[in-house]
């Protein structure tokens, strides 16, 4: 029989246990807040320092020895061109590899090696990719310290991200879609190109955007291939100038990108350059946030719209 005293003890135990529950939930919220707070402080601090510096001239001027005249023209143009090459190289390769592994790959040791290898590649530090590019693209292939070298380096870096995203997007498609297509006599490629790729495109797009957002902020591998920090000219536009530049001459041009410009300004002791660094950092964070936000939105829409 339960005595009144036992009941009181049990109630006390329950209250104590509930208190611990509360405390832990509080601890969880506090830990989350550390992240939220850091991010807010970082963003606001940079905005306060940098936003007054953001005017038309900042975007249309080359870097300069005078902090007040310096701008990010060569940096943002460089970033866009490098990203273009990165996307052109990484997206077809990554999607093709993902499709192969999900739709074609037989279960054998070659497939196992490829899979283990991809997860390994994702864990290799970005600076090691920089060393690879330095040895391979810059010196062995002789591309030099060009937009091409940088674009290919970043493409290798985000390849695992795109492969994994493609595979996940494909895996989310129900097996019955495959079976329906095969039952109508379609070949594997017809199934892939008419059904699998269109249905997984939103998922793949999310992965591509996240990969590109990562590439846009990568500094270490680009420094390692020896990108210059002081570039006061733009890559040659096709058919412009005298003698006219070739269609693809710009891919061999020296360049700088946003994170390198920011690193350069951060590492200078003068306070005026620190403000420039804050402004460049603000633009950079804004770009990555916009891309990540877009990816989150695409995923959200996808989850909402598709009901298999």
């Amino acid at each position, binding site marked *: 029989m339960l005595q009144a005293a036992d009941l009181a003890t049990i109630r006390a135990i329950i209250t104590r*246990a509930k208190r*611990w*529950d509360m405390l*832990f*939930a509080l*601890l*969880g*919220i506090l*830990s*989350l807040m*550390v*992240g*939220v707070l850091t*991010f807010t*402080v*970082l963003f606001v*601090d*940079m905005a306060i320092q940098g936003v007054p510096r953001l005017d038309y001239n900042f975007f249309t001027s080359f870097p300069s020895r005078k902090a007040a005249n310096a701008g990010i023209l060569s940096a943002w143009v460089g970033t866009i061109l490098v990203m273009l090459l990165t996307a052109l190289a990484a997206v077809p*390769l*990554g999607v*093709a*590899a993902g499709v*192969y*592994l999900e739709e*074609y790959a037989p279960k054998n040791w070659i497939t196992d090696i*490829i899979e283990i290898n*991809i997860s*390994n*590649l994702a*864990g*290799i*530090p*970005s*600076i*090691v990719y920089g*060393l*690879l590019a330095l040895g391979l693209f810059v010196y*062995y292939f002789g591309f030099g310290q060009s937009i091409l070298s940088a674009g290919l380096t970043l493409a290798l870096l985000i*390849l695992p991200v795109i492969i994994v995203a493609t595979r996940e997007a494909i895996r989310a498609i129900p097996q019955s879609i495959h079976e329906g297509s095969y039952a109508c006599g379609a070949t*594997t*490629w017809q199934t892939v190109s008419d059904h699998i790729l269109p249905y997984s495109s939103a998922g793949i797009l999310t992965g591509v955007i*996240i990969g590109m957002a990562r590439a*846009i*902020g990568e*500094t270490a591998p680009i420094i*390692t*291939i*020896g990108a210059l*920090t002081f570039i006061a000219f733009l890559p040659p536009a096709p058919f412009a100038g005298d003698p006219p530049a070739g269609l693809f001459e710009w891919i061999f041009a020296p360049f700088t990108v946003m*994170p390198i410009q920011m*690193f350069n300004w*951060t590492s200078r002791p003068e306070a005026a350059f*620190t403000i420039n*660094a804050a402004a460049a*950092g603000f633009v*950079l*964070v804004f770009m*990555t946030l916009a891309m*990540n936000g877009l990816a*989150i939105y695409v995923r959200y829409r996808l989850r909402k719209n598709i009901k298999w």
Partner: protein
Amino acid sequence: MSANASAPSGSLPIGKGVSDRLSKKASRHVKERIIEFLLFCAAAFSVFVTVAIVWVLVKESWVFFEHVPLSDFLFDTQWTPLFDDAHYGIMVLLSGTITSSGVALLVAIPLGTIIALYLSEFAGFKVREIAKPFLELLGGVPTIVYGYFALTFLTPILQSIYPDLPGFNLLSAGLVMGIMIIPYVASLSEDAMRAVPMALREGSYAMGATRLQTALWVVTPAATSGIASAYILGISRAVGETMILAVAAGMQPNLTFNPTEPGATITSYIVQVALGDLPHGSIGYQTIFAAGLTLLLMTLAFNLLGYWLRKRFREVY
């Protein structure tokens, strides 16, 4: 069959129709094979990348190790490759890497684990839907921006608490690095915890356990392998992180395990040399490949450890 049945009774048209279809089918087969081969090449390309990384690092380090014996590289206590009296003791750079990673992990592992437990076991659907993308954003901030933050914001604050702190130090860089790593640890651990079957939780609740008791004594043990690989990923990130250290920790090689001192890490040393004007082929230049090889071997070791842990502690339901 149906095509045959509906075809005119003359023998020629039937035969022709069939062979047409057959030949079309054959060409279709060839096309399929070609496409499959191309896709296979794309997948195999990733293996080529790994081979290329190993090949470049070993080939370029070879030049270095022809001049510097391995014992000097491993046991010398000075790292002065750019001086006349050159010493190549990787230990010096390793100490910086270990110290900064240690500080970062002291921040990231407890906070990341608590956040994961909270999101997976305590938080409601709404909180999780907002917090997860936010953590992703936190992980997406470029590391150079974190470096700027450590140098211009956190270091002055730390200096007002501890006035002897130098302007460049491993502590501030490590702390910010820890915050950068939280999303990786939290997100992967949470995935592992959420993969634990609901029945285990229900059993625990049915026995009268509270949420915290269930989280700590049922969910965590069941998710050990996933949590361990989250930690391993965190360690790899910390060891390979470059820009935060290059900006905020100074780049002076310093054999110390004291986080309040400036120091160089393997990664920040590579940046330092790449920014300088050493000619390709000189011993000073080749050091970065030897340093990179060390880094690659370290991350490979962690990857293997993670793989082993996953196999060893995996709970199959």
